[in-house]
């Protein structure tokens, strides 16, 4: 129940803020928003001991029970980590944004969106029901879209928001399909119920498709290769948003999902390979591209991509443990997952601090372009401290928490290299190599942050304003994060015992005793391969950084129009112009073409089905005889009909139409239908008069200038339609499976008191038809009257536009 409150609280506050923002002018409205994450953090922190003792906290609120969609919250170790990150970093970001954003901005919108996002993110990590999880998942996409385009007067903001929306929602929808497949296999939406059914579903044919679709959702959200392209563009958002959404919380939703569903899919070989490979590629590609960025925020965006790849690959490597039986020596593989969780927390702390640092630099100097920055160390010593602590932690240097998680990462890739499962051993050596190269690049871009922005020659003359140290309140939040960075290095095992151990239990629910899953982290673990690799990273990284100007040229090897971004732009604009072209090619605005499509569809659907089903039958045995005058009538009708097509004068055409109408009247007489004959006679006369009346105002009927090919295609269509009508009618003609109901109407005199059967049907048995037919006539009359009358009053053209 408490967890429901924690999820609802941000939404409630977003609502309150949007209502009372006008009355709240004296104080910055952010202080009101700040209460929410603090309250949520306190609520969660108080539950830590209960969770650490191994008791998950669950509560169900009935939503749509008939569809098995219930708002079930489930708080275990894994959700606890994310809950604490969301509320903890959330508090700091809101605090930071209070001093970062000027009161001229539309603050009520900012905090409303931010709280919506916070609530949605809490909903994602605490939901046990997959459908509810999906709903919150999309809500994070929407609120992220709103936050990226917060400065919506800027074109780049709108473009970035659109891109992130398209990519994450595409992934979200495919994830929804994967969830539905899971439901079809297990008949349950609850993650924990599905985990219990794992033995029954792993052979199911939908198992692999569901896995791939869900992974697509996780990868797009977590900016994994090749879907990472939205993250650098999302840097158009205000810096607090970048710090919160695009480094600490939202981009980790994909990692949460992968870790959460690992007990379901983890034992599969495909899962291991996809998650690990994509993670490693992302790790390398992000760190490689970060080096060439000149904008500090873009650099941090690529570094986020790279670190997310690192965490993702660790989660993938940890999934090996599901395929192994529990033994004392297989525990080392679960340590990859442990490293992932540990680095997840570490990354949130140092990356949040770095983003806030960039925000301060941007705020005070007015630019965040590395080429225009330099020598800020003496002017902004406190900001510089933040930058050094964050960068060194990101590079994996002691005495910061990044060092510990990097050592764990190296240990994990070295262990996985030797594993003889899933045919890893053949390419196993690649794991540590890629990891090591990526670490070198990571080291280089961390050095770029420190040296290019803060050391070196001061370039103040290029800056508009006098630069000075940031106000103290702006520095509070990054300093709290820096203290976390350092204290996590010195006391990692406290975190391990209370936070990470329960999370490991929830990722490996039935694998091993919990204490075996949680290794002791040592700041100094002796001389081994990992520490040698780190030393090599520092050495090679320093050399490469010194020679940066010499080898920057390799980034020009691949042309910019081959990049993934160019591909995305081409796909979007290409599909737009393609759909435009397709639509324009058939939506010509010509009635003839549309009629052509309709007739063609009729011919193909009805005609093909008719012959395919073998419905054709033909028999003349029940036919009535034909007298000589009927032959003449039929001949006259045929002659009139065909000659309408060829007449030169419209008067002749109308008269021929009249001939057809009166011919029909004769048929009605012959076929014993006196009422029809009377009506047809009158109607045909009036119609002919109307036609002639119209012609009085219309120009002479010029011969149609149709091309030969049009004439031929028109002829083919019309002859085929006529032939199809003939064969279908002939097939229907002898259908006598059922008795006719007309015998009933022949009792008309007793039932309705009339001797004319047709009239009793019209006026009595089926009077409702007649009533509506009168309405049709009435409406047509009104329409005609209106058309004529408008002209009389206003004179034509006024009504055209």
């Amino acid at each position, binding site marked *: 129940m408490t967890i429901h409150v924690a999820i609802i609280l941000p939404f409630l506050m977003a609502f309150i803020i949007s209502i009372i923002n006008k009355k709240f002018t004296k104080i910055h409205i952010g202080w009101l928003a700040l209460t929410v994450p603090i309250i949520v953090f306190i609520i969660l922190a108080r539950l830590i001991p209960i969770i650490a003792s191994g008791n998950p906290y669950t509560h169900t609120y009935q939503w749509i029970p008939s569809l098995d969609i219930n708002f079930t919250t489930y708080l275990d170790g894994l959700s606890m980590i994310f809950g604490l990150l969301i509320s903890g970093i959330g508090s700091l970001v809101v605090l930071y944004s209070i001093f970062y954003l000027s009161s001229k901005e539309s603050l009520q919108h900012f905090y409303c969106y931010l709280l919506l996002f916070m609530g949605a993110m809490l909903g994602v990590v605490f939901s046990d029901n997959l459908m509810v999880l999906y709903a919150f998942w999309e809500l994070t996409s929407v609120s992220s879209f709103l936050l990226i385009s917060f400065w919506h007067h800027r074109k780049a903001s709108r473009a970035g928001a659109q891109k992130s929306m398209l990519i994450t929602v595409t992934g979200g929808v495919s994830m929804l399909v994967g969830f539905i497949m899971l439901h079809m296999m297990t008949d349950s939406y609850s993650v924990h119920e599905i985990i219990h059914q794992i033995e029954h579903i792993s052979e199911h044919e939908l198992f692999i498709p569901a896995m791939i679709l869900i992974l697509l959702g996780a990868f797009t959200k977590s900016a994994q290769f090749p879907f990472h392209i939205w993250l650098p563009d999302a840097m158009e958002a205000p810096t607090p948003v970048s710090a919160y959404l695009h480094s600490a919380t939202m981009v980790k939703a994909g990692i949460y999902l992968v870790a959460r569903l690992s007990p379901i899919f983890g034992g599969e070989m495909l899962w291991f390979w996809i998650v690990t490979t994509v993670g490693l590629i992302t790790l390398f590609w992000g760190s490689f591209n970060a080096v060439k960025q000149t904008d500090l925020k873009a650099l941090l965006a690529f570094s986020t991509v790279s670190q997310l790849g690192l965490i993702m690959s660790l989660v993938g490597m940890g999934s090996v443990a599901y395929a192994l039986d529990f033994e004392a020596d297989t525990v080392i593989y679960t340590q990859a997952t442990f490293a992932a969780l540990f680095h997840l927390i570490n990354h949130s702390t140092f990356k949040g601090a770095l983003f806030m640092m960039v925000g301060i630099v941007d705020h005070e100097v007015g630019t965040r372009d590395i080429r225009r920055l330099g020598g800020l160390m003496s002017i902004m010593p406190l900001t510089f401290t933040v930058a050094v602590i964050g960068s060194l932690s990101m590079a994996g240097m002691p005495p910061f928490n990044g060092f510990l998680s990097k050592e764990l990462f190296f240990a994990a890739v070295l262990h996985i290299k030797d594993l003889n499962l899933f045919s890893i051993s053949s390419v196993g050596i690649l794991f540590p190599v890629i990891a090591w190269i990526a670490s070198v690049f990571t080291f280089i871009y961390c050095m770029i942050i420190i040296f290019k922005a803060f050391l070196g020659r001061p370039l103040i003359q290029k800056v508009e304003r006098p630069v000075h140290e940031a106000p103290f309140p702006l520095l509070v939040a990054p300093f709290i994060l820096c203290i976390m960075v350092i204290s996590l290095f010195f006391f990692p095992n406290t975190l391990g015992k209370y936070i990470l151990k329960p999370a490991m239990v929830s990722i490996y629910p039935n694998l091993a005793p919990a204490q075996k899953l949680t290794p002791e982290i040592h700041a100094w673990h002796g001389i081994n391969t990992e520490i040698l690799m780190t030393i090599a990273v520092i050495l090679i990284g320093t050399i490469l950084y010194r020679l940066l100007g010499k080898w920057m040229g390799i980034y020009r090897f691949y042309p910019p129009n081959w990049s993934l971004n160019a591909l995305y732009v081409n796909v979007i604009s290409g599909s737009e112009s393609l759909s435009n072209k397709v639509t324009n090619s058939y939506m010509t605005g*010509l009635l003839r073409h549309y009629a052509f499509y309709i007739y063609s569809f009729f011919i193909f659907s009805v005609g093909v089905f008719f012959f395919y089903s073998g419905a054709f039958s033909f028999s003349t045995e029940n036919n009535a005889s034909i007298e000589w005058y009927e032959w003449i009538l039929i001949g006259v009708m045929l002659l009139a009909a065909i000659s309408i097509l060829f007449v030169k004068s419209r008067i002749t055409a109308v008269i021929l139409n009249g001939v057809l109408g009166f011919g029909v009247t004769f048929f009605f007489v012959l076929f014993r239908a006196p009422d029809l004959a009377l009506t047809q006679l009158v109607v045909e006369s009036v119609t002919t008069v109307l036609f002639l009346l119209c012609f009085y105002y219309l120009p002479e009927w010029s011969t149609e200038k149709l091309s030969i090919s049009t004439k031929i295609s028109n002829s083919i269509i019309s002859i085929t339609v006529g032939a199809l009508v003939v064969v279908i009618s002939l097939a229907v003609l002898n259908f006598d499976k059922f008795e006719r109901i007309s015998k009933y109407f022949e009792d008309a005199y007793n039932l309705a008191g009339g001797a004319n059967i047709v009239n009793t049907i019209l006026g009595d048995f089926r009077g409702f038809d007649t009533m509506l037919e009168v309405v*049709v006539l009435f409406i047509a009359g009104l329409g005609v009257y209106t058309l004529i009358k408008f002209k009389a009053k206003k004179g034509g053209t006024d009504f055209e536009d």
Partner: protein
Amino acid sequence: METMMILLIGVLVSVATYLILSKNVIRVILGTAILSHAVHLLILTIAGVKKGNVPLLKEAESPYTDALPQALILTAIVISFAVTAFVLVLAFRIYQTSKSDDFESLRGQKYE
């Protein structure tokens, strides 16, 4: 008789279709009028022709011709008459305002 009628109806439908596919407003309206003739005849023919007497109880002896399709056609004649009248006046108004009876030149402004 029925087979002959159906062949006639087929020709009428073909002619109507050809007229509807043309560019001229009046040809199209003429086509719809011919199409409704064809449909009325078809309803009557499918029910079977000359199978009995006029469906007037006091005037003729049993068996009677099927009366239900006759009632249906009567309704259809009136409705098609209403629609034809309306469409004719519409064509007249179109010509008044745009000085054209050609669908090619009656497309939207985008094509001008």
